[in-house]
């Protein structure tokens, strides 16, 4: 077993454990922090496979932006000190059944599938390549999704402001 494998397995274990803790934790803020660690683990995996740009974006946007946003909203809406309610027994059972069933199915499919790797020359994910591909309009170019994403982000910004705005008439607020 090479060092790469050891590192990968430990990072994978960390990710799984922390995501599990995030979904069963009884305190909201702790769940958010566990999420942060899980996302950091994912960033570590990206670093490992050489996708540095992606890892950076993961840390900045996901871990930095989204988790911070979540923490803000927790502070705005919840009673932080309180323990949250545990879910009903039957809900846990049903969901566990579905979850485990789905997981088993997927694992089964994955292990029995013969993946056929394409033997191509590996490509270096350097900034120059990423930039060319991102703004390229030939084969393998992503300029269209890039433009569409920018419109989406604009719409999301506007939407978020419109939804969260306090109304002039102020019904319940």
């Amino acid at each position, binding site marked *: 077993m090479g060092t790469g494998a050891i590192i990968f397995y430990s990072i994978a274990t960390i990710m799984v454990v922390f995501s599990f803790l995030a979904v069963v934790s009884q305190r909201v803020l702790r769940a958010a922090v566990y999420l942060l660690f899980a996302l950091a683990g994912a960033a570590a995996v990206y670093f490992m496979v050489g996708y540095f740009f992606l890892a950076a974006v993961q840390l900045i946007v996901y871990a930095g932006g989204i988790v911070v946003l979540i923490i803000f909203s927790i502070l705005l809406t919840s009673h932080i000190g309180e323990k949250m309610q545990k879910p009903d027994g039957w*809900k846990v059972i*049903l*969901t566990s059944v*579905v979850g485990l*069933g*789905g997981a088993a*199915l997927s694992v089964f*499919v994955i292990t029995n599938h013969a993946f056929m790797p394409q033997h191509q020359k590996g490509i270096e994910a350097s900034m120059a390549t990423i930039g060319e591909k991102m703004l390229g309009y030939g084969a393998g170019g992503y300029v269209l999704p890039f433009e569409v994403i920018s419109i989406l982000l604009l719409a999301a910004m506007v939407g978020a402001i419109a939804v969260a705005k306090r109304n002039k008439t102020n019904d319940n607020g």
Partner: protein
Amino acid sequence: MDFSYTIWIAILPFLAFAINGLGSEKLPQKTSGWIATVAIGISAFLSYKTAIQYFSSPSRGGIIAFKTTWLRFNGTLHIDLGILLDPISVMMLVVITTVSLMVFVYSMGYMKNERGYDRYFSFLSLFSFSMLGLVVATNLFQMYMFWELVGISSYLLIGFYYDKPSAVAASKKAFIVTRFADLGFLIGILLVSSLTGTFDFGVLTRPEGLGFASAAPFLGLSTITWALLLIFMGGAGKSAMFPLHIWLPDAMEGPTPVSALIHAATMVVAGVFLVARLFPLYTAYAPGALEVVAFVGAFTTLFAAVIACTQYDIKRILAFSTISQIGYMILALGVSGHGGEAGLGYMASLFHLFTHAFFKALLFLGAGAIIHAVHTNDIREMGNLRKHQPITHVLFLIACLAISGIPPFAGFFSKDEVLSATAASHPVYFAIAMGAAALTAFYMFRLYFIVFWGEERAYPNAPKEAPFIMLGPMMVLAVGSAFAGFIPFGHFISSDGVPLATHIHWPVAITSMAMALVGTATAWRFYKSQSGSSEKAAKALGSFHTSAANKFYIDEAYIIITKGVIFKMVSKPLAWIDRNVIDTFMDLLAAITHWASRQVREFQSGQLQKYAFIFIAGVIIIVLSFIYAAR
């Protein structure tokens, strides 16, 4: 000969009914009476014209004046409406329209200030229309339809004073009893028509041409006998024969002119008319049924006459008298044969129907005049009325003499024919008929003496003579009661169309006169001379007298059978089943639907996680099915 105008005889009263029923609010007061009377008057005139025209020709066959197919189901099954003129229907047209006209004119005086005047005349016109349609029916089904119409008119008129609970109960009783009898009638009609393939009277009254002897017998009697017995059951109900007579005394709750028209002269003789109409079938194929007919008639005659001797309500005495006289008619039909002298009973029965219409209507109208003056029906509260109402007295006396069979009044002649017919048949029937004749004279003169003689009562207002509008019709009817016996009836009507000479059978006639005089004398002794013999006789008869006074407890027996047996044993369990089993089943269906829809409703619970759960579970299942179904 053109008889097409005869359609107006029935249509005119119907138009009067429609106009009075629908337009009485818009017309000025009291015109409804005139409209109805004029309509029936024109019908009467047309009936006389028809009679003259019909009987002046020597043939006595049936003439179809009008015919139309009302409902056609297939080539052979159809229901027609039409007008059939033959001796008995023309005779009935004359009787019905004449008595109706008298009753209508009388009613204009009797009902003068009553509430519901317009309603009264419209119902009365409806009745006239129904009865006229019944007698001219060309086929059994048309007769049945008008039979039921007559039943409805009777119901409406008996219950005319609808705020009186006793009147409402009486109208229901009449309708239910006759409707029950009509069930037998309907089954009989269906049997006859399925055996012979037709409803038409023209075919049914020529039974030589019908071939149905091959029908399998049931319980020892042939099917045709059963059918004719059931038809007779319908007739017995309408004509108030024992044991279906219970409705007629109660029907006296209606206004008195109604009792005169419907329950004396016309509707109650519909049963007699029915048997007479189907008489060729009875004589040719079901002589056993005729024996039953005769027995029922005989029993009823005596039974009703005995009860009439003990009653104190003037209208009830007359009601039981009607039942008894119709018993005579039925008895005469029952003992009759077909053709020639054997058919004497048939002719006698219809002759008695004819004369009875006159004197019974006169008796009822007279009773109405008395009640109108004295304001009570109970004869114990009346007395010495001949001083107060002389004309009514004379007319009533004429009617009493007629019904008792004292010559030269009409009843003598017709009763003589009836008695001769029974003498020719069976001595027991003859004895019963004689006994009933004696009793008739007795109870009629008992009524006469108590009301018109005897000591003066304390009347609240002094009874006045009836107004001319009421006396006029009574006088016309008195003329009929007096002289109708001289008509050579057999010349017009006989069982086979061949004129039958009507003559007085002297042995029978003398015996009947003797009986009538005995009855009258007994009544004189008991009631005119105030000797107290009536109370002694009543005590001597003891319990027989009390049961007769209680109408032999027949009504109570009916109550026991219906309430005690049928309601308790049959209706209650059925009602329990209906409420608990059937309704519960229905409720269960509804509850299941309710529960199921509740469950389906939960699909839209508004809970996000439930939706997501189903989503994910569904995806997993679909993937599974794709992977493994593809194998």
